[in-house]
């Protein structure tokens, strides 16, 4: 659970995981006739948590464990953000918010974020359909015990009109080192936006892309069915996978020495460095991952890199060390962790 270094699901791979790191389904839901979180009183926010708590006490069929965020240190909250289990927004709200997590941390139910409930299912590799099937079942289970705000015309009612309707945000996180190397990412972002999809950085809206990782998600939530939204993203993802694999093949054929040099330099630095920043580490991990996916590096498992991407982030690092660290100390400790795991 939360006390472990990483989510259990990160130790597994999924279909097409040479390009697709993870698939995520998020459903926004609100309780009927309780003001949304931006207008609600403390008592109303408590009522939302109690509703979920009662449901879990009655029948906890998905094995969710409720954590009140006010009981956690800021570092622990940031660690949950780094693992994509809660949003930065939820970690900054100070009272009456909670998250319910499944043991593998594939399911996360945020309580009192922008909407009363934000259900998230996160699976490794390209498993959007599977993530949706599970989210759909959990949604049915929640709705059995909780009155959800739903309107015949507008569908599921959300605080922001951009989420109304299905309340569904489906997204995939992809690793595109080869397309980045051949300068094709800008074109592909432009093309994708025309298909009603948004491209974002690692931690959602307004965050930068690091380590050649991109999040792609649907923008429209109203007027299309959940299946249409998900199918559209799956089809586009298949195209992205093909393009990235092609770019990798071409680089390997035309620029083998350049590629090997990049990959082994990155590997060498990670293996032997004594001080390293997050940005540099993410760049190098991306190159080593590419080396593994191309079969150039054979003595490292790609899941180790998935895990490293989370472990080396500032909050997780400090929780692991059990103390607040200066930036210099973090650089040193980060390098040490990476060295240990790559030996």
């Amino acid at each position, binding site marked *: 659970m939360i006390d472990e270094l990483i989510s259990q699901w990160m130790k597994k791979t999924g279909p097409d995981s040479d390009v697709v790191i993870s698939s995520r389904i998020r459903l926004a839901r*609100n309780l*009927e*006739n*309780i*003001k*949304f979180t*931006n*207008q609600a009183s403390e008592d109303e926010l408590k009522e939302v948590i109690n509703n979920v708590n009662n449901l879990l006490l009655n029948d906890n069929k998905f094995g969710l464990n409720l954590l009140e965020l006010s009981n956690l240190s800021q570092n622990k909250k940031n660690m949950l953000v780094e693992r994509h289990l809660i949003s930065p927004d939820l970690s900054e709200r100070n009272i009456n918010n909670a998250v319910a997590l499944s043991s593998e941390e594939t399911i996360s139910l945020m309580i009192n974020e*922008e909407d009363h409930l934000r259900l998230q299912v996160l699976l490794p590799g390209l498993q959007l359909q599977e993530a949706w099937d599970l989210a*759909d079942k959990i*949604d*049915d289970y929640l*709705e*059995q015990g909780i*009155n*959800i*705000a*739903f*309107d*015949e*015309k*507008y*569908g*599921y*009612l*959300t*605080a*922001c*009109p*951009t989420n*109304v*309707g*299905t309340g*569904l945000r489906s997204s995939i996180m992809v690793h595109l080192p080869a397309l980045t190397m051949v300068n094709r990412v800008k074109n592909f972002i432009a093309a994708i936006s025309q298909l009603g999809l948004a491209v974002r950085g690692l931690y959602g*809206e*307004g965050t930068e892309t690091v380590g050649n990782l991109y999040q792609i998600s649907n923008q*429209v*939530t*109203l*007027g*299309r*069915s*959940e299946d249409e939204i998900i199918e559209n993203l799956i089809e586009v993802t298949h195209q992205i996978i093909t393009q990235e694999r092609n770019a990798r093949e071409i680089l390997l054929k035309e620029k083998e020495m350049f590629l090997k040099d990049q990959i082994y330099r990155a590997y060498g630095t990670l293996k032997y460095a004594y001080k390293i*920043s*997050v*940005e540099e580490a993410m760049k190098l991990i991306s190159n080593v991952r590419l080396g593994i996916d191309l079969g150039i590096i054979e003595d490292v498992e790609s899941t180790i890199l998935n895990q490293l991407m989370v472990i080396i982030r*500032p909050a997780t690092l400090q929780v692991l060390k059990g103390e607040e660290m*200066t*930036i210099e100390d973090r650089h040193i400790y980060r390098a040490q962790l990476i060295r240990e795991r790559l030996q």
Partner: protein
Amino acid sequence: MLCQNCQEHDAKVHVSKIINGEKEDIYLCEECAHISEGLDFGLDFSFNNLLTGLLNNQFHPHHKINLSNHKIKCEFCGLSYDIFSKSGRLGCNECYNSFTDKIDKVLRRIHGNNRHTGKVPKRAGERVMVKRRVKELRKLMDEAVATEEFERAAELRDEIKELKDEIGE
């Protein structure tokens, strides 16, 4: 405290911005502060800003005519349209009824559509159907009262009560 931009270095620079009359404090490391220095012309193309721009019609040719609508308030949560148009966030499920005309327009702009075609929750779906039936019966009851068919009106009243009990209202 960590720099809010890179989340890596310690924040050493404190920047205060006034955006739409609201003060926002930003804490940055020296590097990020240096990069953003001189590049901030108050232009904010964040999605939320575009959304609120659509909501308060500030760029609409008849902007002034629309101002009277901004006084509408939601009866359930008290949120005024004016506040909603600035924040882009509604206050409760009833707001969708209170601001329905304006929301309809905005939804068509955002989603190219204003009607849900996806999942209907089982229990709430049933309630939606029952509520719709109650609405119809009320109309019939009012008509019966207007035409002085009191027996018929009483029957309808009982039927409405039964339906409302069914959904716990």
